[in-house]
């Protein structure tokens, strides 16, 4: 438990963050090239959280949205910096608790990350877009909930749950497959309990 938030801020971690941000971008790009109805833009954030811990995960998430917001003019992304931060921290904590070792744990992590995203995004959606998420399926649910007289907050919540939880589930399954395939040479850079042994 003591090591939950322990972070090594060395060169390896500072190189990991831009790589993760790049991976986020690629995930989003592939999803749009293949016309998938998901975002898949947090693969890198999750990898950052798993390898570097909650702090690095959070930095990855927040920096991701801030950088894209300030350079590609996508001010919509900027609003969700908080959500990405939450996802990174949540996945990082779950990984430190040893949940990413098995497939069942990965699914649990996905649910935690998805719900974190929902809890943070719903108020943001309400403030900035009046409850919609910009995803066709989710917005259809929102329109339905408004037409049947449910409160705006509940409609927006359902909208987010429907979009975010499946998205995070698929994201973390992909991440699980990738992490399992990484060479030990790389993952050992980020292990916490390594010690420098001297020969004399």
């Amino acid at each position, binding site marked *: 438990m003591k090591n939950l938030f322990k972070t090594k801020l060395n060169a390896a971690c500072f190189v990991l963050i831009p790589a993760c941000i790049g991976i986020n971008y690629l995930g989003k790009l592939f999803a749009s090239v*293949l016309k998938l109805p998901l975002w898949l833009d947090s693969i890198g954030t999750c990898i950052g959280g798993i390898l570097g811990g909650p702090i690095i995960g959070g930095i990855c998430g927040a920096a991701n949205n801030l*950088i894209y917001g300030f350079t*590609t003019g996508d001010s919509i992304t900027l609003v969700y910096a908080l959500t990405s931060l939450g996802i990174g921290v949540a996945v990082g904590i779950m990984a430190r608790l040893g949940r990413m070792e098995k497939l069942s744990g990965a699914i649990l992590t996905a649910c935690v990350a998805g719900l974190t995203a929902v809890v943070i995004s719903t108020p943001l959606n309400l403030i900035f877009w009046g409850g919609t998420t910009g995803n066709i399926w989710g917005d259809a649910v929102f329109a339905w909930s408004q037409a049947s007289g449910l409160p705006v907050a509940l409609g927006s919540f359902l909208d987010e749950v429907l979009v975010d939880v499946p998205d995070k589930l698929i994201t973390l399954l992909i991440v699980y497959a990738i992490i399992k395939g990484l060479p030990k040479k790389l993952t050992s850079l980020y292990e916490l309990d390594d010690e420098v042994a001297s020969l004399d």
Partner: protein
Amino acid sequence: MKSISLYVDKDTCLTRLHPFAKMFYILAAVSAPLIGGALWIYGLFLAISLCLLISGKIIRKVFPLIAFSFTIIITIFLIHGLFNQENQKVLFHLGPLAFYEEGLLYAARIGLNILNMLLAFATFVLTTKPADLVDDLEQAGFSPRFGYMISSVFQIIPQMMGTMNTIMDAQRSRGMETEGSLFVRAKAFIPLISPVVSSSLINTRERAIALEVRGFDSKNKKTFLREHKLAGKDKTFMLLMALLIAGSIVWRVLTWL
């Protein structure tokens, strides 16, 4: 290699304005309408942003950004115009659909907010070179490690896009289908993304070693090749924006009284 930044290289006074002054403009443009609470303040800032964009000769680059946000704005107008909870007064009919005044007003407020944010960010994004921004941030005392992080994102992404195209061609030549039904497309995602992700993560190891060798973890104070300080006109610009924010607070207090 294609850059992901939208920066347009033009020598106008907007480009020469210090990045901090432009960031302060974003702050003013986003906060003043929220503080003031009246619809005309959005209009005022939209007009200022448009004037700035025209003076920076980049107005043509803004249209694709606006077109992109239009789909979202239209969804908001449809959903709130038709189904908002406070809808009472029917404004007009469009075939079998009835649009209500309250919902449309609410949607107008959100739509204006989106447009306003978009234009304010466009003035910053289109006229600021990411490398200059990082440089100025570091000179103002921002950690150079985070500075490296930001500037390396701009180097890594074009590289990764190159890798992505190579891998896409490689997988296609092995007979993988990337077009067709949703299931076929979803199945294609994993063999495409995992090689790029693993290879870029493996590359980070070499990058980390290269950085460490060049003294990345050194605690010494860094010096700069080019000093860039806030000039007189940057300060005047920022003062003007501060006055606008103060004005919106005064307006809010006056409307309450």
